């Protein structure tokens, strides 16, 4: 029997061989076509990238950017170095915006009553209705996101002037109304000031996550980090004290972080004001001292009078007035806080929106035109808004992408994506930038401004209108003799700066201030105060259908694909709650708990932006929407609420965590020191480096590089952990999104991740961020164990990965001490189970043609952006010259707003990276293993007396 069964096996095998050979022999290679243009546009060269400068503004966030296009397709966003506002930096959301262009959930054509219609019929009906309403003296309202385009503002005013009753209301999903109101009441200017952190020596911030989400992180991060350079002995290093409830990026970077309940903030500020006032007057402070000892803080602030900043991110007018009072008292205005060159990031006044919603509900508004907003998701009383919407005679919605408000108005007039539109922006008075389309509209959409022009009976196109306005407003005084030259130059640079009138002396409304200082609020000491905040990845939630952002882990909690309720370790222990357990907050909010070291006791933090119901396949039904919990109180929307009940449902949900080990276990992974020690000994905290270097012995022959040895230096003192590099890398290197289920299995694919460690004091930890990518070790442990030599070393120091050789043994992953290698468990780009935009033909347009799309079953990892190295080397060859330092920029370096990442040639002793490697702060990760990494880190320097841990 044994014999016959083996014969059968043999026959099976033989049959299989023959049939497979037959299949292999009969299959032909598919015919590939080459289709040239009918008429070649002169600027397009196949195989070469073109960069267009344009402006990103989504209503909440601004950047002047360059868009890399390839064969007419935008594929990557980079910061515009000529911009005074954001320099070369970008944020993760700006980087990810290119994927939203190719989102299948975008609106593709105009509709009337949700039935496809032509633009002509939509226009005819709207024009007719508008004139009807106008002749009956009805009110027409335009409700838009904040608009910072001066030409659009002019257009809106012209449009409004045609009607008897017209109102324009700007609405921000995340409101800065209190700052605007406070500055109006104190100084008579409804503006958000610019904060010059680089000029300050002492910074006190309260609940303001200015490095993560508040106002404009891309603008603040470079200022903050340039103020915190320990090398800068003359000016000194900025010291930062931060008060907050939840653990934010800003709190993580502060030298001293003090946990408070949100209700304590006002009393703290009042006490601080009184202490400073007493200190300046030379008198003793006689008021009541709160829980937190503020005397030292007040002394420090007084000591750095005129060179300090106090900020608060709380949307409460009284708090903002006290903050203004403190800053005024300290003389911080002009040098550190600039009301003159203010930031035009938000213009929504909460009162005006409340008023509008009430008017809508009482049927006073006859026509409502909505642009770039989603009130049915992010307005707290969305039901009231919806019922009011039904009472208006004409409702028009202008949105780019699918959201909860789409389909609720009679007319949908979808607008272009910003990469398809003309625009301009004035983020700071005197700092203008232009926006130009980088691709023709992909769908039957039209810009908002073109719609307004059509409806005002103006036959001019928006592009011509924009040009005419620039000729009228900015051309004179630009120094150019011909307008076309001015226009072309501005368009090429992307920015145009002009001088504005200098400020007058500032005086504060002291009567108002003293009234508020002498008022008092009760501080809650029991129950839970819930803080509702914007997450770094999703912000207000308007880009929720962007899978890159959805899978971008929160920089502190390191979870993605969900919103959670962060709870302090001691509360969790008291209530017997573990991470992932569903907890019931108040009556109807059930969220997974997340034990967050550093969370203030008695507080919970929940992120906005989740819980969408109609935003596309990626964003729908992920997490919960907490906008409805925002209360309108004291003239502003209050981002938090108080609950007395917190119940453990004892049900467990599994979170998508990208890092589960929080401690360095006493190992010198992030090396740190304090400023005083650094001043005495620049290599303090980094003594080990010299020791390991002196023990440098090897049995192997030393690797000798000729020409190039690529290296990367990461300054841990400059890195704030903003995640911008992660998305930049993802966009550049065609890195797939794997989805919640796979992230839970630790299969996230990011080539660069920002590891976050806590010191071993869970109640009040210090937080460390460490961007981690392939270390390109000269003595790479991964290379030795690959059975097929798919990973090996190049003569330029690169740890090469050859996908076609890789057979997926994953030995390299196991042997890599840094755990930076990723395995393709699936064919993510073509597998319908991972439909995260790049599976469709539309989504594939975002792929970088210079980087291979990896197959299933192969290992991948950071390549030091070898495609960029090769491109620039070739360019130097073609131009018959040597490579310049900083000519090659990896995607992470390019995107980093703080300049923490520097890439270059280690063989060139003059290069910046070589000098940084010689810096006494420089060390290598796990250098005791003698892997000889090509990535160096610079020690973290705290501006604190001592390291508490």
């Amino acid at each position: 029997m044994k014999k016959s069964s083996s014969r059968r096996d043999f026959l099976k095998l033989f049959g299989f061989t023959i049939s497979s050979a037959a299949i292999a022999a009969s299959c032909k290679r598919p015919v590939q076509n080459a289709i040239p243009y009918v008429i070649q546009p002169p600027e397009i060269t196949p195989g070469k990238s073109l960069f267009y400068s344009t402006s990103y503004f989504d209503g909440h966030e601004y950047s002047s950017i360059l868009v890399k296009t390839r064969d007419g397709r935008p594929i990557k966003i980079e910061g515009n170095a000529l911009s005074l506002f954001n320099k070369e930096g970008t944020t993760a959301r700006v980087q990810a915006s290119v994927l939203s262009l190719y989102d299948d959930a975008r609106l593709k054509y105009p509709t009337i009553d949700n039935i496809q219609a032509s633009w002509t019929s939509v226009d005819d009906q709207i024009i007719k209705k508008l004139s009807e309403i106008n002749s009956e003296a009805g009110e027409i309202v335009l409700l838009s996101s904040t608009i910072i385009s001066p030409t659009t503002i002019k257009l809106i005013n012209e449009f409004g002037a045609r009607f008897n009753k017209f109102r324009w209301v700007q609405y921000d999903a995340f409101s800065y109304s209190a700052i605007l109101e406070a500055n109006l009441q104190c100084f008579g200017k409804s503006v958000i000031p610019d904060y010059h952190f680089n000029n300050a020596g002492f910074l006190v911030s309260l609940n303001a996550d200015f490095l993560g989400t508040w106002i404009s992180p891309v603008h603040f991060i470079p200022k903050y980090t340039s103020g915190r350079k320990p090398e800068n002995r003359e000016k000194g290093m900025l010291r930062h004290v931060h008060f907050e409830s939840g653990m934010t990026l800003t709190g993580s970077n502060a030298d001293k972080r003090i946990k408070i309940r949100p209700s304590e903030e006002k009393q703290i500020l009042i006490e601080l004001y009184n202490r400073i006032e007493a200190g300046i007057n030379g008198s003793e402070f006689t008021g009541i001292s709160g829980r937190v000892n503020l005397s030292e803080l007040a002394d420090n602030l007084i000591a750095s009078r005129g060179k300090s900043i106090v900020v608060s991110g709380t949307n409460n007018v009284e708090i903002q007035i006290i903050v203004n009072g403190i800053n005024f008292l300290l003389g911080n205005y002009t040098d550190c806080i600039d009301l003159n060159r203010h930031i035009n990031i938000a213009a929504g006044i909460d009162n005006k929106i409340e008023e509008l919603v009430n008017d809508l509900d009482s049927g006073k508004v006859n026509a409502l035109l909505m642009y770039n907003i989603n009130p049915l998701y992010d307005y707290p009383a969305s039901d009231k808004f919806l019922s009011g919407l039904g009472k208006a005679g004409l409702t028009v919605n202008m949105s780019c992408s699918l959201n909860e408000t789409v389909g609720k108005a009679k007319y949908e007039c979808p607008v272009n994506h910003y990469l398809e539109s003309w625009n301009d922006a004035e983020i700071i008075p005197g700092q203008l930038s232009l926006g130009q389309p980088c691709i023709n509209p992909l769908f039957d959409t039209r810009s908002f401004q073109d719609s307004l022009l059509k409806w005002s009976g103006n036959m001019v196109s928006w592009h011509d209108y924009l040009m005419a306005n620039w000729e009228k407003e900015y051309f004179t005084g630009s120094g150019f003799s011909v307008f076309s030259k001015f226009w072309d130059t501005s368009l090429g640079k992307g920015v145009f700066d002009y001088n504005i009138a200098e400020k007058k002396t500032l005086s504060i409304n002291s009567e108002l201030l003293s009234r508020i200082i002498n008022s008092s609020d009760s501080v809650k000491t029991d129950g839970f105060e819930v803080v509702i905040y914007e997450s770094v990845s999703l912000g207000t939630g308007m880009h929720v259908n962007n899978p890159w952002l959805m899978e971008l882990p929160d920089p502190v909690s390191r979870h993605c694909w969900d919103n959670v309720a962060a709870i302090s370790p001691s509360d969790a222990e008291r209530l017997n709650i573990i991470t992932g357990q569903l907890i019931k907050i108040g009556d109807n909010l059930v969220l997974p708990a997340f034990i967050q070291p550093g969370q203030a006791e008695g507080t919970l933090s929940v992120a906005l932006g989740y819980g969408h119901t109609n935003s596309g396949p990626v964003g729908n039904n992920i997490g919960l929407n907490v906008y409805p919990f925002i209360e309108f109180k004291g003239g502003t929307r209050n981002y938090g609420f108080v609950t007395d009940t917190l119940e453990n449902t004892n049900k467990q949900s599994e979170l998508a965590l990208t890092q589960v080990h929080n401690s360095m276990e006493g190992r010198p992974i992030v090396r740190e020191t304090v400023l005083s020690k650094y001043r005495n000994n620049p290599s303090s905290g980094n003594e080990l480096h010299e020791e390991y270097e002196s023990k440098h012995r090897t049995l192997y022959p030393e690797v000798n590089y000729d020409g190039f040895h690529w290296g990367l230096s990461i300054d841990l003192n400059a890195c704030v952990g903003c995640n911008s590099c992660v998305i930049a890398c993802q966009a550049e290197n065609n890195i797939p999104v794997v989805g919640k289920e796979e992230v839970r299995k630790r299969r996230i694919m990011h080539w660069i991740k920002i590891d976050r460690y806590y010191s071993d004091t869970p109640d009040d930890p210090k937080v460390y961020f460490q961007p981690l990518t392939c270390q390109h070790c000269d003595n790479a442990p991964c290379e030795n164990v690959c059975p097929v030599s798919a990973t090996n070393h190049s003569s330029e120091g690169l740890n090469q990965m050859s996908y076609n050789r890789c057979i997926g043994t994953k030995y390299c992953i196991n042997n890599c001490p840094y755990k930076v290698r990723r395995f393709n468990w699936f064919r993510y780009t073509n597998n319908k189970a991972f439909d995260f935009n790049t599976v469709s033909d539309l989504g594939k347009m975002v792929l970088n043609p210079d980087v291979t799309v990896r197959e299933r079953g192969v290992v991948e990892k950071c390549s030091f952006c070898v495609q960029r190295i090769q491109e620039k080397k070739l360019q130097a060859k073609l131009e018959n010259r040597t490579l310049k330092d900083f000519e090659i920029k990896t995607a992470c370096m390019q995107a980093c707003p703080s300049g923490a990442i520097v890439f270059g040639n280690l063989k060139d002793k003059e290069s910046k990276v070589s000098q940084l490697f010689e810096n006494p702060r420089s060390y290598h990760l796990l250098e005791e293993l003698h892997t000889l990494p090509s990535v160096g880190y610079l020690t973290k320097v705290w501006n604190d007396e001592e390291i508490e841990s």
Partner: protein
Amino acid sequence: MNHYVPLNKVLFLFLILLFSFNSHVRSNDILKSDTVSNIRTVFKAEELIRGERLFYGLVSKDKGTESCASCHNTIVSDELNWNPDAVEISRKYSGKSAGDLSRVLLKPAGEKMAEVHNNFKYSSEDIVLIKAYMDKLAVTGLKQNKPVVTNLFLFIVASIIFLISVTDLIISKKLKRKWIHLLILTGTGIFITNSLVVGALSIGHSPDYEPDQPIKFSHAVHAGQNETDCIYCHSFAHHSKSAGFPSENICMNCHIVVRNGNRSGMFEIAKVVGNYEEKIPIKWIKVYNLQDHVFFSHAQHVEAGGLSCQECHGPVEEMDRIRLNQKLTMGWCIECHRTKNVNFKNNQFYSDYKELADMIRNGKTDSVTVEKIGGTECMKCHY
């Protein structure tokens, strides 16, 4: 080697149909009068057979008159035929009347066609029947070649013999002499192994791949006879990754005037002109197809490396249809990288290689191969 897939055929047909309305015989008046009234659409079977016989020249007309099929292919062929094939013409005239065909057939406008069609003496009835057959051809398309005995067939036969022999050797034992089995097994075994090895090694190779292009463009005429520089059409070779295919406006620089080909007559050039006027891009068939994970830059090789086009693409100026000259294997690339020198002394870029520069200065070496500066490493081409 004909590598058309059905989709391509459809697109090709579509192109020709579109462009047929724009050809040199366009005359709206004639089209109107003829198409409306005089087109016969119903033919008897005998009439169709007579049309076919006329087309193939089986009905004796005058001696010396060439049959249609002698110039216009009716069967798929690997050979390059400068004349449009029968189906191509049939499809071009499928919407037109026999009168139109007769006008072009008997009084051609082009020189080349006039020469060949010189003493054609078809009656108008003949032409109606020929047209009837052509309308049938337009639907059925070209006949395929008869299958030939391929290696695959021999492979299957050898495998069966091998199998029978093994079965007999182990189980049935009909043949008592074992050496016969061994002989058969050795013979077929060698053949099978050889076929498998050769087959496996050539997976993905298409040696001498020479597909019919949508337009019978001749490099021999353009680059050879007329000595047009390669860069005139493939203008990005010096500064971009891809050399680029010429856009139709480049073709029209010359073909705005040149409308008559020596061998192809007006038919092929009319396609370019037609496509240009209708703004339809030409779908050329790519012959040099590198795998997606290979990054090859023309600028690197042509401009920085100073290679001539022929070094990789062969004597293109002698080819009518472009033919794949290489196997495009990695071995072929590496071989060149191991032997060819870089322009070390004259290009400033290489001065960063300090040690090699010293060696050259000291006379220790006089040239640097691509390999010496890392030209055979994985991530020079694969990333």
